[in-house]
């Protein structure tokens, strides 16, 4: 049975009290709880996305030995709010020859695709909107909406730069989905399930139980996944669709105001999501160390903090990479995907399968230090 946040909360006593207040209408209560959580998560992620722009500017400034934004609020931390207000109040310009419907649709699709993935992101063992049986598969599938949106954005603008950016973006996202998916499949193989609950639950205890340390193939798979995820989110060094030195600003060249904001927000949240997935799949997710399990509500908050810490560390790495590495050429991009990452990912998948059979499912640490599985 699929576990949800509602089914998690229903084990506490206060749930019954609230249920009575709703006149024992479980459906209505579930609807309210879902809505509440959805609002909280979307708001949280929007904030994280906003803060992402701030972090990007601050970290880049740090790397380049500048100060960065420092006027609005303490250390300039409210800069993103000021930017948001600026975007919302800007004039909404649409090119005369643009395809009106698709021009409106594209930023919305981007945001829908990203927000839909939040439904399965495992914030903690309890706070997960819906722990679906096909969780990770669903996440991969629904996030491909972003690819469509990039393409449509490029097409609908009816501009050379946008068109080229959109085409590049779509082909890049489709291509890099393959090594990413195969790397994730290796982890699915190790966990024996596609639900995030099962995958995270498998990595309880010490960091030696994390899937990244499970076997050498999984270790390589993490890097394949991470590189592929960078490309899927159009982050440097794979930011060809929005390469400012070649295509002005790529697929969102013609977008202004909050429409541009949607694209930007979607990109930053997607980076957060792929980092979260990396943390959940490879780095133990929201598990407390040493397998401490008090089943009380505050512990869930601690787990959320752990998950956020891991994710944000990866987020930092992503930004770090952006300001360190130069951009690739288009042919290099494709050859990396098809000639290197995909074969390596396939070898990893086969290697994991063989490892499972040969060592009877035991991890590297279990083989070395002993222990049962």
């Amino acid at each position, binding site marked *: *049975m*699929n576990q949800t946040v509602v089914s998690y909360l229903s084990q506490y006593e206060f749930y019954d009290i609230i249920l009575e207040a709703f006149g024992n209408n479980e*459906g209505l209560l*579930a*609807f309210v709880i879902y809505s509440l959580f959805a609002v909280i998560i979307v708001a949280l992620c929007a904030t994280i996305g906003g803060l992402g722009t701030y972090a990007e500017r601050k970290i880049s400034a740090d790397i380049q030995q500048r100060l960065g934004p420092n006027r609005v609020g303490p250390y300039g931390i409210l800069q993103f709010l000021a930017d948001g207000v600026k975007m919302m109040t800007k004039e909404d310009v649409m090119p005369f020859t643009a*395809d009106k*419907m*698709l021009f409106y*649709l594209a930023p919305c699709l981007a945001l829908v695709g990203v927000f839909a993935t939040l439904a399965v992101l495992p914030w903690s063992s309890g706070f997960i909107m819906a722990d*679906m*049986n*096909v969780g990770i*598969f*669903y996440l*991969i*599938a*629904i996030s*491909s*909406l972003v*690819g*469509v949106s990039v*393409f*449509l954005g490029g*097409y609908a603008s009816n501009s050379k730069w946008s068109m080229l950016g959109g*085409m590049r973006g*779509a082909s890049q996202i*489709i291509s890099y*989905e393959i090594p990413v998916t195969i790397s994730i499949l290796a982890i699915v193989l190790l966990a024996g*399930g*596609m639900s995030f609950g099962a995958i995270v639950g498998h990595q309880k205890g010490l960091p030696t139980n994390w899937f990244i340390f499970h076997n050498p193939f999984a270790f390589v798979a993490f890097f394949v996944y991470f590189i592929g995820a960078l490309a899927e989110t159009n982050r440097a060094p794979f930011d060809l669709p929005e390469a400012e030195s070649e295509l002005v600003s790529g697929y969102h060249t013609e977008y202004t105001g909050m429409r541009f904001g949607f694209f930007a927000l979607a990109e930053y949240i997607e980076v957060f999501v792929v980092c979260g997935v990396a943390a959940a799949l490879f780095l133990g997710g929201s598990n407390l160390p040493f397998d401490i399990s008090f089943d009380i509500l505050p512990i869930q908050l601690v787990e959320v903090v752990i998950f956020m810490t891991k994710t944000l560390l990866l987020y930092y790495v992503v930004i770090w990479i952006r300001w360190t590495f130069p951009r690739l050429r288009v042919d290099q991009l494709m050859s990396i995907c098809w000639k290197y990452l995909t074969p390596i990912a396939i070898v990893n998948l086969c290697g994991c399968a063989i490892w499972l059979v040969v060592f009877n499912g035991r991890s590297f640490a279990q083989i070395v230090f002993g222990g049962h599985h």
Partner: protein
Amino acid sequence: MFAQLLFAMSALLTVGGAIAVVVTKNIMHSCIFLLACLIGVAGLYATLGADFVAVTQIMVYVGGIVILMLFAVMLTGGKDFVSRAQNLLGLAPSMGNKWTFSIAILVSIVFLLTNISLIGNIVRSHAPKTFGNDYPSTVSQIGHLLVKDHVLAFELSSVLLLGALVGAAIIARPRKQ
């Protein structure tokens, strides 16, 4: 309640998308409406308890086929080219005209009537059957079925996909003039 809601929305999306595909004049918009329609079908799969099929539907169609079609539309000149061809040769316009649509609708009505008479029988004979409201996970069962009962079809489909991949690459590759 959620299932009912999901069903209503998905059905609306599916039917609306399908009809929009029919009536839209712009091939690019048609593709997008097809996308909506396919996502609706995925929702319908979800209401039928077919979680794996639903996600596969989204994965393959949204991530693959629709983008492929958008590419194809783009590589074949997009919507603009269509009207030019029509003016030049005096053929029926690419997205159809009154004549083609009236023929198509005529055929469809005949087909619709035929099928409704069939469906009526089926629904009358199977109506009372319901199998509860639970949605057990199908992933592991489908996995077992694929590598046990349907393993031949599974392997053949892999060969088919490989053939399609190679064939598509060979057919569409750029040729030296």
